[in-house]
């Protein structure tokens, strides 16, 4: 095995391969940082270029783009409250307040360190734990998915701000909006127009809800500090700050690895899950959502932790877990490689090269992140009166480019107004978004589980995995109720 690894190391560590990976990471970071442009878009666009490349560099290019774009999503989330990807939504909750406090550099640094750590742990898990995690993933059926997603939804309790009730109402609205469009069996729900039959895309809802209310607030209220640029402030993350967040980073990476290995879950759910867990267990839990570095660490380590792990079911079972790995499956097939158990027998050399390349890409991600950070953090220097309209412009063009649909642009603008209305009514936006993203997965798996069991709800508690999550859900509800009672007592006092 050692010989194989050394041989693979020698084969991967050529300047051409390093250049390809560096280009992929850089491209991914920039794509991820542009609102409306996604990692899926970057990977799909790069696919034709891989036709002319050797198998391993072509896969490494796609993996590098995926990793880079996942990290890149945090850049716009922190600087302009516009998550470049859905998985960076939780990063915006703490990153943007930090940027407003003049700590954009610190937030970006923490996002980078957590992303790289999560990514590295994810790659190691891919190398050493692919087989057991793939077996675990096979045991996860609709009831387990449902309980897992329900547990991830409990994050709502943590991001509800001042009122749990308003947070729950926000989540109910998000779940309801997610039902618009075609359902599992082809029924069109709430399809008031033809465009609505396909449902509402995540990107316009996400960006509209987070980014546009900032512009409307600026126009309507015109706060005194609107034309003053924020100072960059202290850039570096101190050793104490990093060590204080290390537990959340390691836990977030593990959550990312386990959830990433399960097909269909992906980095967004992992980030929500990790953020909720970090908030519940942190001694700074009350600061989450107000500019807490640990929140960024939890979210970013989980979403990048899921990146490498999504390759586990692809390589070990030949099952793509999401759209990006679906595109990668196509790339493998084009290159004459068939992912699955046989890949480890017939193309073990390529597999080791891929593993080594992925580890190297973690180092390159760190380098690319550091190099782009200074450039990106200068965005904080731009006065709000210029920056916020520019964000609107980026959002309009980015959203239109995703689907070439004016309907999505209209949804973006409407969600901006809805987000502003929610702000006025003191309803937090984050639970809405979490529920909107998790809603379809929760519903689909609940209906599948009930269909399998012929309508018997006992199926939801039919395996050890479902029981574990049921106990965790009860535990979280208990903790939340206790915290609310304590809050209420403090308010009265």
């Amino acid at each position, binding site marked *: 095995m050692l010989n194989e690894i050394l041989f693979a190391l020698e084969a991967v560590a050529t300047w051409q391969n390093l250049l390809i990976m560096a280009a992929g990471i850089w491209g991914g970071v920039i794509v991820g940082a542009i609102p409306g442009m996604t990692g899926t878009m970057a990977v799909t*666009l790069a696919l034709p270029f891989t036709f002319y490349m050797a198998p391993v560099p072509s896969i490494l290019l796609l993996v590098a783009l995926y990793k880079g774009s996942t990290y890149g999503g945090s850049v716009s989330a922190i600087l302009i409250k516009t998550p470049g990807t859905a998985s960076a939504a939780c990063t915006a909750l703490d990153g943007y307040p930090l940027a407003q406090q003049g700590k954009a550099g610190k937030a970006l640094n923490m996002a980078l360190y957590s992303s790289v750590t999560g990514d590295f742990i994810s790659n190691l898990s891919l190398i050493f734990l692919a087989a057991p995690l793939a077996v675990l993933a096979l045991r996860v059926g609709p009831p387990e998915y449902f309980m897992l997603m329900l547990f991830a939804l409990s994050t709502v309790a943590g991001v509800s701000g001042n*009122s749990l009730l308003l947070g729950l109402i926000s989540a*109910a609205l998000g779940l309801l909006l997610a039902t618009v469009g075609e359902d599992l069996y082809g029924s069109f729900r709430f399809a008031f127009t033809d465009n609505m039959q396909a449902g509402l895309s995540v990107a316009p809802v996400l960006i509209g809800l987070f980014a546009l209310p900032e512009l409307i607030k600026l*126009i309507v209220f015109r706060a005194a500090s609107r034309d003053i640029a924020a100072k960059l402030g202290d850039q570096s993350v101190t050793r104490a700050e990093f060590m204080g967040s290390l537990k959340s980073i390691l836990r977030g990476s593990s959550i990312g690895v386990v959830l990433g290995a399960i097909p269909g879950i992906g980095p967004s759910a992992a980030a929500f899950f990790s953020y909720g867990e970090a908030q519940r267990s942190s001694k700074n839990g009350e600061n989450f959502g107000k500019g807490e570095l640990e929140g960024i660490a939890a979210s970013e380590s989980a979403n990048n932790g899921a990146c490498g792990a999504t390759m586990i079911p692809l390589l070990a079972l030949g099952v793509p877990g999401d759209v990006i790995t679906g595109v990668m499956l196509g790339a493998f097939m084009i290159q004459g490689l068939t992912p699955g158990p046989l890949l480890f027998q017939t193309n073990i050399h390529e597999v080791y090269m891929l593993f080594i390349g992925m580890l190297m890409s973690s180092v390159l991600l760190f380098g690319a992140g550091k190099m782009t950070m200074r450039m990106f953090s200068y965005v904080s220097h731009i006065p709000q009166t210029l920056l916020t309209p520019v964000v609107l412009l980026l959002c309009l*063009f980015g959203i239109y480019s995703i689907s070439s649909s004016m309907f999505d642009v209209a949804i973006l603008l409407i969600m901006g*107004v809805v987000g502003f209305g929610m702000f006025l009514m003191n309803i937090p936006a984050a639970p809405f978004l979490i529920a909107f993203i998790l809603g379809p997965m929760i519903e689909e798996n609940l209906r599948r589980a009930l269909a399998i069991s012929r309508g018997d709800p006992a199926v939801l508690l039919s395996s050890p995995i479902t029981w574990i999550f049921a106990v965790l859900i009860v535990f979280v509800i208990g903790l939340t109720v206790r915290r609310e009672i304590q809050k209420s007592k403090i308010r009265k006092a």
Partner: protein
Amino acid sequence: MKLPLNRGPLLQGLAIIAFFTFVVLVLIPAYVPRPAFIPGFAPPPDMWPRTVSIIGAVIGLITVVGALFGRGVPTEQITTDGASSKIHFLRFLAVLLCFAGFLILVPLIGFLLSAVVLIGVAIFLAGERKHWVWAAGITLVGPFLLVSFFHSVLGTQFPVGALTKSLGF
């Protein structure tokens, strides 16, 4: 007994109950059709939206009960320029007109020119007066740069206007 009524959360709770009740009683029967045949024992398409709406209405009810017993929600202070509520409302109306105007203008003068108008108005409404050179630059050059970027990288064809078709945008 006089209850310490908290009017804000009470109205909020009532609005929430009204919304979710409207969804359950009006929207779901009208806009969530049940297929004539559902394979196996699968729950019907209205099961989930109905469940969510009922839960939403119950939470609204809890908010109302809380408000009746004086349990409000602590509100965050909004920093403003000190203008009256009427001015704030007029500014909000301007934003709505701006967004609606953009959607109306796109079929007429195309995406590019509509974006130029929207960004210019947005910068003006945001109160930017100091950096007018930058504001003009962003308004006039920004949309053109983005069109060329998205067109060259992704091949995106932005909508052209009925009035400006002959000019190519």
